[in-house]
């Protein structure tokens, strides 16, 4: 490495380090915010050993549903020669119910009591704890504060204010294992996944050449991957990263579903739940869906258009390597117990408020890196598709997957700057105290909603349009037909791209928007159904007169048509504003966007994996395992998300860490049936999660001893099927590029009456003459 490169590397490292450490992270005494964990911050930020809290009356082992009178008290505090110490307390219990015994104590909820105003000058308080009716390890957390006893300020007043914390544990009649902290579970699962991934990589290396399984060979092999600019290798890196984070996001989803399996569950605290759903959304959208799209796009776009590589290979590698760094920043807060807790939408002013976790700053910084990555990727693909198409390939002769990547990147390119600006504003507000979203200084919180949704709604189409491209390729190849209405498919994709920019207002129907604008947005939102409908009908018509050969990718494509249609139909309820007023922020919304993003995007990816894996790896996936994956996955997926529509209509709100059902004893927000449906959903979620391991196992098995794949195993027409499986590097000889011919050039094409009419309207006389000649 020469000196110049070394200097550049050092400067880049310094910048990266500065980016990582610059946000000032403030730690609470116990890491987590909230009275239960850190005490009331009105009594100072640190504990004092001068105050000694105690709880008396607690048994070592409780009896079921028995009431115990307990006394909480403290001694010590700020010294004063004339006054005794007095103060207040806060007591939290993990299980059972706390009840005040007199007017000095008040209940916030069954798990938390504190002193009243009248009881704020005591040293001990009496209350009742009713033990649980089942076997639980019960934890008590007591905070007491102590002042030197003279509230009016005479004789030293209450100038000294100290507090301390005490934890106590009570065992159940039958001993049970301690519950693990959910963050420990999450971290362990991520670590185990990473180790499994590392082993898999090592095994792939071993299988590549068993005789060279030594460090001397491994180092250059791994260095080759880390420094590669080859579009196929970068695509594989995206693909592996995307699948890894799909697993991480899935693990978080499972923990969310454990929490929601039964009403009033306490597997996750509110604080933890808020972090889990925030990171689940961010991970799935930015760290799983986007990298998977980029993985397929990196692999297939150059191959489909007959190009040796992308136009800007080094930029391509940089785009990828920004992603793991961004991911690290996004997750940094979790490891300090202060992960982002804003939801993936990060609404202002909460996102810049003091109550939002410190990890939010890192989360924003990480997303800024992802914005940079996506922008560079957009430049690269637009350039490549514009200037590197093979001879003979006009715009309207490109494969539809390439068209979908072109449209998606155009949309991203036009929308993501708004998001980037919003993120930078939030970052500056949080770090150096600017006031873009500080209301007291004239900031405007709704600005964030506009900037976010101007990007956020097109982003949904950015991740679904490439799946449209995949489905178009797979359904045509599976039916052994040319895609029905190629040109209308292209126009429909472009139409979706255009309309997506004028519909984002429907996310803000309840934000005080003017009624006139609400009507306009209602109309434009409904308009999306037109190009989407064209695509669905064209896919169905493609099968007409075909010879449908059922493979695993065909099954996932048909599954996509079912789930995406259902997702599209459920989406039509939201522009109808009277419906939206009830359904907004409910589980109906959760069901809808999972039908579109999982049933649409992820099913599209699965079809793509089974369709292109032989091309990428040179090995055929096991069809039996593939069909098993589809059957288990498709059924459990629908069992998982379909009942959520009902829960939303009943009144189950999203982003609530728990819910309560109405029983004979108590009034809740939901009918009692909701409890059963939530359990059913959670069980289905686990089946769906584990069904995906069938696909992973299939990939590993195939890589080890799969049948060798021919260049064109399915009978496709585009250039990727012309190369060997896997393709060489460079993918095509730059001096001998393939030439696309067109089966339509010498075919008499007599248009019908309507076609003639539209040709007359849409094609000028000069163009017609040109074509004729």
């Amino acid at each position, binding site marked *: 490495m020469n000196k110049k490169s070394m200097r550049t590397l050092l400067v880049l490292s310094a910048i990266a380090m500065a980016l990582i450490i610059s946000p000032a992270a403030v730690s609470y005494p116990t890491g987590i915010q909230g009275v239960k964990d850190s005490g009331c911050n009105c009594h100072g930020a640190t504990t004092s050993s001068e105050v000694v809290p105690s709880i008396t009356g607690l048994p070592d082992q409780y009896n079921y549903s028995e009431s115990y009178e307990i006394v909480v008290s403290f001694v010590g505090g700020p010294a004063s020669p004339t006054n005794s110490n007095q103060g207040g307390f806060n007591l939290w219990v993990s299980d059972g119910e706390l009840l005040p015994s007199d007017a000095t104590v008040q*209940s916030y909820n069954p798990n938390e009591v504190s002193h009243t105003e009248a009881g704020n000058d005591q040293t001990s308080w009496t209350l009742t704890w009713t033990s649980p009716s089942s076997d639980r390890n019960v934890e008590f957390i007591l905070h007491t504060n102590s002042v030197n006893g003279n509230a009016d300020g005479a004789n030293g007043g209450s100038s000294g204010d100290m507090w301390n914390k005490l934890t106590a544990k009570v065992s159940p009649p039958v001993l049970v294992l301690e519950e693990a902290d959910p963050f420990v579970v999450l971290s362990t699962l991520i670590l185990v996944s990473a180790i499994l991934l590392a082993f898999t990589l090592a095994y792939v290396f071993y299988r590549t050449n068993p005789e060279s399984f030594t460090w001397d060979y491994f180092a250059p092999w791994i260095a080759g991957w880390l420094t590669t600019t080859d579009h196929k290798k970068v695509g594989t890196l995206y693909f592996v990263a995307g699948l890894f984070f799909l697993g991480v996001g899935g693990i978080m989803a499972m923990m969310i579903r454990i929490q929601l399996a039964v009403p009033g569950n306490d597997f996750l605290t509110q604080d933890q739940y808020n972090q889990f759903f925030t990171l689940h959304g961010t991970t799935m959208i930015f760290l799983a869906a986007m990298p998977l799209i980029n993985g397929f796009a990196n692999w297939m776009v150059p191959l489909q258009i007959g190009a040796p590589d992308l136009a800007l290979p080094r930029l391509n590698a940089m785009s990828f390597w920004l992603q793991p760094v961004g991911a690290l920043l996004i997750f940094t807060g979790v490891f300090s117990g202060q992960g982002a807790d804003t*939801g993936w939408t990060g609404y202002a002013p909460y996102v810049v408020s003091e109550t939002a976790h410190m990890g939010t700053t890192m989360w924003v910084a990480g997303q800024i890196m992802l914005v940079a990555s996506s922008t560079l990727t957009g430049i690269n693909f637009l350039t490549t598709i514009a200037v590197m198409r093979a001879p003979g390939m006009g715009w309207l002769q490109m494969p539809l997957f390439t068209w979908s990547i072109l449209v998606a990147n155009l949309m991203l390119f036009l929308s993501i700057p708004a998001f980037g600006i919003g993120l930078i504003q939030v970052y500056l507000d949080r770090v150096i105290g600017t006031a873009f979203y500080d209301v007291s200084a004239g900031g405007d919180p709704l600005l964030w909603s506009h900037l976010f949704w101007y990007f956020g709604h097109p982003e949904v189409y950015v991740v679904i349009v490439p799946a449209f491209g995949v489905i178009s390729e797979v359904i045509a190849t599976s039916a052994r037909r040319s895609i029905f209405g*190629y040109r209308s498919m292209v126009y429909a994709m472009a139409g979706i791209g255009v309309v997506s920019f004028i519909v984002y207002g429907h996310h803000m129907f309840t934000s005080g928007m003017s009624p006139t604008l609400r009507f306009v947005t209602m109309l434009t939102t409904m308009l999306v159904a037109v190009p989407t409908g064209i695509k669905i009908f064209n896919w*169905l*018509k493609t099968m007409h007169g075909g010879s449908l050969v059922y493979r695993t990718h065909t099954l996932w494509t048909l599954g996509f048509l079912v789930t995406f249609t259902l997702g599209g139909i459920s989406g039509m309820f939201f522009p109808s504003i009277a419906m939206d007023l009830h359904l907004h922020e409910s589980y109906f919304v959760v069901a809808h966007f999972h039908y579109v993003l999982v049933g649409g995007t992820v099913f599209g990816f699965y079809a793509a994996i089974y369709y292109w894996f032989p091309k990428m790896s040179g090995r055929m996936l096991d069809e039996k395992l593939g069909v098993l994956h589809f059957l288990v996955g498709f059924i459990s997926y629908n069992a998982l998300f379909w009942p959520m529509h009902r829960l939303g209509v009943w009144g189950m709100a999203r982003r*609530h860490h728990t819910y309560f059902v109405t029983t004979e004893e108590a009034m809740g927000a939901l009918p009692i049936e909701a409890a059963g449906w939530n359990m059913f959903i959670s069980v289905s979620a686990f089946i769906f999660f584990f069904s995906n391991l069938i696909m992973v196992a299939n990939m590993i098995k195939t890589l080890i001893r799969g049948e060798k794949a021919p260049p064109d195993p399915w009978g496709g027409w585009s250039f990727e099927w012309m190369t060997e499986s896997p393709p060489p590097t460079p993918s095509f000889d730059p001096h001998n590029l393939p030439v696309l011919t067109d*089966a339509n050039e010498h075919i008499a094409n007599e248009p*019908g009456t309507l076609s003639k009419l539209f040709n007359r309207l849409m094609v000028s006389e000069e163009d017609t003459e040109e074509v004729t000649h």
Partner: protein
Amino acid sequence: MISFFVSVFTFTWLYHHSFWYRSEDADGYKNPDEIAVGVFPKHNDDMRLEVAWTIAPFILIVWLTYVSWVPLDAVWSETGEDGYHGEECEEGQSSNNRLDDYGIVTSECYHVIEITAKQWVWAFDCLDLPTEICDTGSDNIEVYGTVPLLSLKTGETYLANMRSEDVTHAPWFLGMGVKEDTLYGAQIGPSEYNWPTTVWLPISSVVDDQIILCTEYCGDAHSVMAGKLVVHQ
């Protein structure tokens, strides 16, 4: 109903084609589109069909938009003569709610109340309204603990002016199916109080006691930021 018919149409078509055109192997297939590697295949299109399923959904969504127009007006009705709920009631005047031909509650006048949100509690204010029209207090809901209570009268319509003292919240009146954000700092015109958002609460005979939840994520205790609406005669 429309969703049902669109689903049945699409899935019947999908089901039929999936099985009718199924093939164990494609050996005997004539390849009408001349699909071959490196050759852009013959166009498989039909202008009439494509235009038909462009225009049909368009007509459908225009009709859906038109149908949704009436409830749009109802949920954000203007105040005054053009609206569904007239002017603010005089002292002692009743809204006398009734259903119009579309099943929408219309009123002779409305009462103004105020809702203020802050992390993580609601505050209801009946202003100068007599307690038989509007009352506030607190109630203990077993699972939520002590929550603020708003008591409104059947047959009366209320316009709630809403604001937030910190971040964005949104009260969801579950039994009435309405919600609206409460915004901190948003301002429409110079005013001593900023009431940027409002929500209509027409209390008809079908409205029952219900829980009010917060549906705009607002931090730690968002999910237990509850209230209770009690309807009295």
